[in-house]
C-alpha cells in the first residue's frame, strides 16, 4: 500500500468562529444559580465550564450537550444541581434551520466533525436527509456475519486513481475518494479557497479553482489545485494550465445546467477584476456553452489543446446530467479524457436561479448508475474515472455514490458547512455572504482565516474517513476501490416489502416548513 495513504493528517480541535454555538439541546441556568460549580465538576462533555478564578460558570456550551440521553448517567446536571437552577429542552431554534436536504441534524453533525475531527457524540442524524428520495431512501445492507475485517483505519485504503487510461501520463492517486469542487476567486473569499487548497495538500487530495483565475496564493499548493477551464475562460493562461496536475473543462454545472455563470458587479472588486482581467464593478457572464465546441470532435480538439500545453496534465470533463448523460460520458472517454465528472442538479455552492436547481437535469442518484452501466457496456469503464457531484452531502452519500458506480465524488457544499455556512442561501446578495464565506467584501472577509478553513476541512474529512473505514471493514473490503459498482450492497426502502423495510433505519421525520 502506498505509504502516503497511511500518513493521515493530524486532526485537532478548531472552535467555532461564533461566540454562541447552536446545539441540538438548549440548557439554561436561571437566577437560582449560586455558582457552586457542581455542574462543571460533573459534565464530561464540556458543556459547563467554570475556571478556578471565575466567580460563576460560563454560559453553557450547548452544542456539546448530549441532552436527555444523559438522564441515565451519574452526571446529569439537571438532577444534580443543588438549586434546581437548570432546565434542558430541545432547541426550538432548529426548526428555523436547515431544509429537506441538509437537515438541522446534518448541519450540526458536520459542524461537530469539523470542530473535533471525530464523529459527533450527540445523537445527531448526520447521514440521512429528509428529502424522501435518492440517497435518503438508500441504505447499505446488513453485512453477512463473519465478513468483518480486523483492520485499523490506517490499514484501509480510501484512495482512488485518477488516471486509468495507461496513456503514459502520471498515475495520480488521491488518498480520499473525493476532492473539492470549483469555487472561484470572486465568488468565494480568498481565505476560504486558499484554506481549501491547504487542506487538499494535507489530505493528499485536490481542490479546484473554479472559473475565477489562479491567484498566486495557490502556488505553494499547486500540485493539489485543479485549473478549471470554463466558457468565460476567466484567468485561464498558459502557466495556469502548466501549474496544475489536473485540468477541468466545465461544460455545464448541476446548479445551473444549460445556463451560464454570472458574477454580480458588486463582487468584482479591483483584485477580482485584475485576476479575471476585466473591469471593476462590472458584472461578469460566463456564457453557455463553449462556442468552440459543438461536437465530440470539437471537444477532442479542446482536450488535445490542454494536453499539448501540459504534457503531464490529466483532463477532467465536467458535465451536467441530461437524459443522454451516458452518451456524453462515453464521448468524453473517446475524446481522451481521464476523468468524466457528472454534476447532478441538486447541488452547487454558488448562486443560481431556483428554477434551474430544482427543475433542470436529473438528480445525481439516477445519473451515476446510468453512466456506470453504459461505460461498462462500452468496455470503457476501467479506463476512465467517474466522478459524481451535485447533492453529495456526507460520507455515506459518497459511499452510496461509489456503490452505485462512481469512483469518487466532488464535494462543495459540505466544505462550506465545515466552515460554518448555515445555507441561508444569500450568497449573491449585495455584499455577499454574511458569514464571510462567499464574499469579497473587505469587512466581511475578516471573519475567516486560512488556517481555520484548512483544519476544519481536514477534521471533517478525517471524520468522514472513519465512517468509510467502518463501512468497508464491515463488508470485508480493504479498499474503497472494491466498493465501486457494488450496488448489490445497497437497498432502497421503496423497493422493499414492509417486513424487510422494518429492518432498516427509517427516514428522519422532520417537519419542514418551506
Amino acid at each position: 500500500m502506498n505509504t502516503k495513504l497511511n500518513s493521515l493528517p493530524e486532526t485537532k480541535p478548531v472552535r467555532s468562529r461564533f461566540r454562541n454555538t447552536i446545539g441540538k439541546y438548549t440548557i439554561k441556568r436561571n437566577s437560582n444559580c449560586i455558582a457552586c460549580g457542581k455542574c462543571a465538576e460533573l459534565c464530561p462533555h464540556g458543556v459547563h465550564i467554570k475556571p478556578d478564578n471565575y466567580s460563576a460558570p460560563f454560559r453553557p456550551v450547548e452544542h456539546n450537550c448530549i441532552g436527555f440521553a444523559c438522564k441515565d448517567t451519574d452526571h446529569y446536571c439537571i438532577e444534580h444541581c443543588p438549586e434546581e437552577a437548570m432546565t434542558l429542552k430541545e432547541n426550538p431554534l432548529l426548526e428555523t434551520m436547515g431544509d429537506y436536504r441538509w437537515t438541522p441534524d446534518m448541519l450540526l453533525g458536520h459542524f461537530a466533525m469539523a470542530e473535533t475531527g471525530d464523529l459527533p457524540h450527540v445523537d445527531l442524524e448526520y447521514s440521512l436527509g429528509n428529502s424522501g428520495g435518492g440517497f435518503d431512501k438508500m441504505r447499505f445492507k446488513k453485512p453477512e456475519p463473519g465478513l468483518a475485517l480486523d483492520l485499523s483505519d490506517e490499514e484501509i485504503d480510501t484512495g482512488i486513481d485518477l488516471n486509468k487510461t495507461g496513456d503514459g501520463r502520471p498515475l495520480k492517486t488521491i488518498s480520499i475518494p473525493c476532492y473539492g469542487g470549483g469555487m472561484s476567486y470572486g465568488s468565494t473569499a480568498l481565505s476560504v479557497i486558499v484554506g481549501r487548497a491547504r487542506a487538499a495538500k494535507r489530505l493528499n487530495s485536490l481542490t479546484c479553482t473554479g472559473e475565477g483565475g489562479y491567484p498566486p496564493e495557490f502556488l505553494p499548493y499547486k500540485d493539489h489545485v485543479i485549473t478549471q477551464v470554463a466558457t468565460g475562460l476567466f484567468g485561464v493562461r498558459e502557466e495556469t494550465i502548466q501549474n496544475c496536475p489536473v485540468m477541468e473543462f466545465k461544460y455545464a454545472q448541476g446548479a445551473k445546467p444549460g445556463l451560464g455563470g454570472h458574477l454580480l458587479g458588486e463582487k468584482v472588486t479591483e483584485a477580482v477584476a485584475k485576476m479575471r482581467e476585466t473591469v471593476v464593478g462590472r458584472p461578469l457572464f460566463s456564457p453557455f456553452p463553449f462556442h468552440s465546441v459543438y461536437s465530440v470532435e470539437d471537444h477532442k480538439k479542446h482536450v488535445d489543446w490542454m494536453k499539448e500545453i501540459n504534457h503531464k496534465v490529466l483532463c477532467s470533463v465536467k458535465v451536467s446530467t441530461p437524459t443522454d448523460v451516458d452518451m456524453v460520458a462515453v464521448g468524453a472517454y473517446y475524446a481522451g479524457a481521464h476523468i468524466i465528472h457528472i454534476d447532478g442538479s441538486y447541488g452547487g455552492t454558488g448562486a443560481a436561479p431556483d428554477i434551474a436547481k430544482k427543475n433542470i437535469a436529473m438528480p445525481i442518484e439516477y445519473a451515476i448508475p446510468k453512466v456506470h452501466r453504459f461505460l461498462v457496456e462500452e468496455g470503457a469503464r476501467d479506463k476512465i474515472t467517474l466522478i459524481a457531484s451535485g447533492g453529495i452531502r456526507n460520507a455515506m452519500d459518497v459511499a452510496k455514490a461509489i456503490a452505485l458506480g462512481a469512483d469518487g465524488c466532488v464535494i462543495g457544499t459540505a466544505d462550506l458547512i465545515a466552515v460554518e455556512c448555515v445555507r441561508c442561501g444569500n450568497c449573491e446578495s449585495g455584499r455577499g455572504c454574511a458569514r464571510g464565506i462567499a464574499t469579497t467584501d473587505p469587512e466581511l472577509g475578516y471573519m475567516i482565516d486560512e488556517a481555520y478553513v484548512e483544519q476544519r476541512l481536514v477534521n471533517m474529512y478525517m471524520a468522514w474517513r472513519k465512517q468509510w473505514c467502518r463501512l468497508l471493514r464491515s463488508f470485508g473490503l480493504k479498499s474503497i476501490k472494491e466498493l465501486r459498482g457494488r450496488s448489490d450492497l445497497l437497498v432502497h426502502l421503496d423497493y422493499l416489502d414492509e417486513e424487510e423495510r422494518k429492518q432498516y433505519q427509517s427516514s428522519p421525520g422532520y417537519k419542514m416548513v418551506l
Partner: protein
Amino acid sequence: MPQKYTIHTKPAPPKFYPVGKYATIEFRENCAGSCKECVKKKCVYDIFKNNYLHMSKMEEPEYLYTCNSCFRCIQECTKGIFSRVINPEYRDIGDEYYTPDVINRTWYQAHTGSIPVSGAGYRGPFVGKGFDSMWTDMSEIVRPTRDGIHGREYINTCIELSRRPERLAFHEDGSLAVAVNPILEIPLPILFEKPSFGVLSPKVLVSMLKAAQAIGTKMFMDADEINETLTPFGTTIIPKIKKENVHRFAGLLKGSDMVEIDYEPGIETFLEALKAAHENLVISVGLPLSAALNYAEIGVALSNTVMDTLHVYADYNGRELHSQNPRFIKDMLRDIHVAMVKAGTRRQINILASGGVSMAEHVNKTIICGADGVVIDRPLLLAMECRLCDRCRKGLSCPVKLEEIDPAYGSNRIINLMGAWRNQMLEMLGAMGLREARRLRGEVGRSMWFEDLEKESFGPIFGERKISLDVG
C-alpha cells in the same frame, strides 16, 4: 430588425409587510444595555435599523419580513439574547399547493421583477406530487443563442390562439385556394382569467387588465361582467359566453377578436353558426376536466369542428373536478394531447390549460404535457399582495386592502411577476436548446419523469418498486 419582445419591469415595493418566514425573538431583560458590540448595529442586512418605528405605529416589526437567516445576531450577541421562530402567521397562509414559500416567492417577483436566485444548492424534497415529479432536460453543447438568453438573438415565446389550416392549397396562378383566417397571436404563453373568488373590486380587475394589455396578452371574463368602463381594454378581454345567452352579446362580440363558449353536449352546431356569423372571431371552448366527462374524446370531437382553441379547466390546484381520486392536470393534458395527435388534429387547434400553474416552472411543464399555453388567476391576486387568507370568503376585511389598490401599482406588480416568469421560461428553454416556446408543446422527450427514471436507473439494481409514490 423587428423590436424584440421584452416585459419591462420596475420595482414595486410592497405596501403592506409581507408575511415573512422568521420572527426574531429578543430576550431583552437579559440585554446588557450598553453593549458596544450590539449585533443589531452590525446586521449585514440592516434589518434592525428602523425596527423601533413600528412600535409607535402599532405595526408589525419590519424584520419579520426581512430577516435573511444568517444567524449572526443569534450567534454573536454577547449575552445570547436572540433566538428565532417560524412566524406563526407564515404557517397559516396558503394551502398545500400554494405553500407559504410559493406565495413569498411570488411576492418577491412581483416586487422586484427578478428571478429568485439563491446559493448553496437546492433545498426541497427529492420529488413531489404533480409537476414536482418531472424534470426538464438540458443540452451540454447546444444553445439557441451565442450571447446568452438575454442577448441579441431571440427566444420566441409567442403562441397562436387561432386555428391553423391542415394544409394550404394553391391555384395554378399561385394564389391561395383555401380561406385562411387571420392569425391571432400573443407574445407569451400565459393568459389571465378573472379569479372566481377573492376581492374582485373594479380596481383589482382594472389592474389585471392593464397588465394584460401592457404585456400583450388577454384575459378571460364573463361577458355579463364586462361593462362600459372596461371598453378601453377592447380585445384584451376574451368574453366568456354560454350558448343560451349569446344573443345578448352581439355588440360585444363585434368588438372582440376571441370568445369563449362553455362546453355542452351538442355544442358543435352552435359553433358552426357562431363562426358563420363572426367569420374572424377566434372561438375557444371551455371544457371542465371533470371525472364525469371523457375529456380526451370530447377534445378530439371538438378539434374536428371550427373551434380554434380548447381551454381546459382543472381546479385551482390542478386537480380533476368531481372526483374522489382526482388526477393531476399533467396527466389529463397528456391524454388530450395524445388523443388529438392520434386523430391528426392536434396541429390545427390550440390547447390552453387552467389550474395548477402557481410558479414559472409550471408554465413550461404544462406546455411539455401538451398545452400551447396556460391561463392563470390566483397568481395575479398574489402579485397584488393577496395572502390567500380566505378572509374575503368569510365576509371579513382584506388585510392588504386589495379593494382599494391603485391600478397603476397593481398592474406594475403583475407585470413584474410576468417579467420574472418569462425570464425563467427563457432560462429553461435556453437550457433545452429551444428557440421557440411552440417547439416545446408536447415535447416529453425534453423532460424526465420520476417513474421513468426510477425504472431505468434503479430498476436493474433494486428490482420492482414496492411503494408507489403518489405523483399524480
